[in-house]
């Protein structure tokens, strides 16, 4: 019984760490996605705008 209880405790601790790591991963993915979206779709810096021009039109982002 004791062994099983301690196994459960260990498992739940590991589960908590994994969940926290996953939360961080999800947050990082969302931030990276928003940053790339800003570059691809919104930034008006002329180099970015020039590079993205055709793609913005083709993907129906407001371009200019």
């Amino acid at each position, binding site marked *: 019984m004791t062994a099983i209880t301690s196994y459960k405790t260990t498992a739940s601790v590991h589960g908590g760490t*994994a*969940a926290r*790591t*996953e939360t*961080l*991963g*999800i*947050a*990082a*993915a*969302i931030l*990276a*996605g*928003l*940053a*790339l*979206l800003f*570059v*691809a*779709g*919104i930034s*008006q810096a002329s180099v970015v705008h*020039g*590079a*993205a021009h*055709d*793609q*913005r*039109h*083709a*993907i*129906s*982002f*407001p*371009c*200019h």
Partner: protein
Amino acid sequence: MTYRLFAGALYAGLAAGLVAAVLQFVFVIPLLVEGELFETGMRVHFQDGSVQSPAGSGGLEFDLVRHGLTVGMAIVSYTAFALLMSASMAIAARRGEVITPRRGAVWGLAGFAAIALSPAAGLPPELPGTIGAELVARQVWWVAAMLFSVAGIALIAFARGPHAWALALAGLGLLLLPHLYGAPMIDRYYGISPPELSALFATRSLAVTAVAWVVMGAVAAHFRADHRPAG
């Protein structure tokens, strides 16, 4: 876990970006290049009182830098969307949703509806030369329309429990809200290119975007690798 999330998103973005780029170069970019002939005045719609304007693209020309950048930006754009979709799938999986490639394709369709179709219903895809309202106002509306549409579709798709119908109705309301408010418009028409060309450009670019989103959803779901039998 995090590695898998990012790897899946990168593969999905690469696949969708390449599919989009190939389809764009066949179906969309030639129209865009033709639109530029009118934008720059090289071709004029209804010239000299004629009731006809010549149709047909001037050809893509072998501009490696320009077209290479377009392919690159397709990959960047769809990788951005894929990162957001893979993150959303991870959140949904935590809440008990089973993500299979088949369901991923439906995720892709829903993403297309929220991110492309709904904003396009207010601000249609613009052929070069189209004159619109002030850019920043359009970008603000566009981002708001995406956010409202994503929230609305998520409510409709994931509402559970006894009040699911009420949440779904609220979702419909969120979907409608940016359109009832209205996208920034100007009070007159400036169009210099043929309406036939603009219409074909708008529908084709949306169709290509839809295909790319479905590919992206299916690939992102595939790389989650948690597709076990339902239940």
